[in-house]
């Protein structure tokens, strides 16, 4: 199972108590994780990436295994530790504004 950590506002929106655990079919990539996440929680569509272009929203970043993966192509395979569930895929809101 893939583990995903969401920003608090998105956990509230999707009524999720803690981390998300998802089964992902095929290659584990940013795109496949977000596809699975939005399928289970449709209210998250558009909050992490644009619904049409799938471009990451500018004030969100993707971290895993102490790396910033935000600028990787969305179909790039994620680290094996994310695919195995040993490490979470972190969706983080930028510390900006108030």
């Amino acid at each position, binding site marked *: 199972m893939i583990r995903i950590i969401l920003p608090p*506002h998105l956990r509230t929106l999707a009524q999720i108590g803690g981390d998300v655990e998802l089964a992902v079919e095929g290659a584990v990539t940013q795109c496949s994780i977000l596809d699975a996440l939005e399928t289970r929680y449709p209210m998250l569509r558009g909050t992490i990436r644009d619904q049409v272009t799938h471009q990451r929203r500018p004030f969100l970043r993707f971290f895993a295994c102490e790396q910033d993966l935000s600028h990787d192509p969305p179909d790039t395979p994620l680290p094996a530790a994310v695919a195995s569930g040993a490490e979470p895929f972190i969706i983080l809101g930028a510390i900006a*504004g108030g």
Partner: protein
Amino acid sequence: MSRVRVLVGTHKGAFVLTSDGKREQWDVNGPFFGGWEIYHVKGSPADPDRLYASQSSGWFGQIIQRSSDGGKTWEPVGNKFAYEGVAGTHQWYDGTPHPWEFKRVWHIEPSLTDPDTVYAGAEDAALFRSTDGGQAWSELPGLRGHGTGPHWQPGAGGMCLHTIILDPSNPDRIFIAISAAGAFRSDDAGQTWNPINRGLYSKYIPNPTAEVGHCVHHIAMHPSRPGVLFMQKHWDVMRSDNAGDSWEKISGTLPTDFGFAIDVHAHEPETIYVVPIKSDTEHYPPEGKLRVYRSRTGGNEWEPLTKGLPQGDCYVNVLRDAMAVDLLDSCGIYFGTTGGQVYASSDSGDTWSPIVRDLPAVLSVEVQTLA
């Protein structure tokens, strides 16, 4: 006995304020959607327990929330706002072409007759409609596509479609307003549109009497006289007696005619309210005195309403969607401030008192009068 429900959108959540017809004691519920900007909350005239809220965030984008129990519980509905066809360009602040990009919904206007039909005014300016309770949204592209779109430009708050008025006497007639493009009218239920800005004069654009480019801040209409419109422009308070075909200035005795909010008394179609703001660079009341101005003559002659409002050291603003009226026999007037106060008057504006004093900055106020 009648009840009143005040729907307040703020910079950090929504609040629902309720009272009986006396409007003396208030229950304050919220924040709903805490931490999110709530640009607007409005109820369906056809089903007062059906509410819609525009929830947005610079981080997470746009959410539309729907309630079927008067705001006790909410559910997120559709939030896909895609421009129809090629998005095209409008003018950027420096006059260069800039692609249309959806940012947020400023105003929600439920249908007068169907709780599942609702309109949304967007930034960048466009009009969307849902006919399934907010699940799916479609643009009414005739507005952006009617020809002048490339000349529209953003106001300081963005290029927003902030006013939607549905004509209760004619289901095909819709009025909208955009900062900074102006006012527009459709006479075929939103399929085609025409600018209705004749008589407006805006010295901050190259041609002060241009067909489009005017920074209209808000428009109000009394439902018994849908051909009479009142407008708070960037500067100037205006009225039209021919459904927007032409406008005349009615600023008259106002201390300043800059402002954002404007509304009409529920039972007196010639009684209108504005909150004068010092200037476009100083968004607070003149002399630090928070004064609502009332005209009982449809404009030009204005009186300050001050009883119960702070008359010193007050430097808040009242935004365009932050004033509303109830329908009780003694008409209630309500407005919210960027300082977090929501003021109410249960006697047509003669006296005021705060319902709440310390909310986040108020973005919008709507009122429902309930049986």
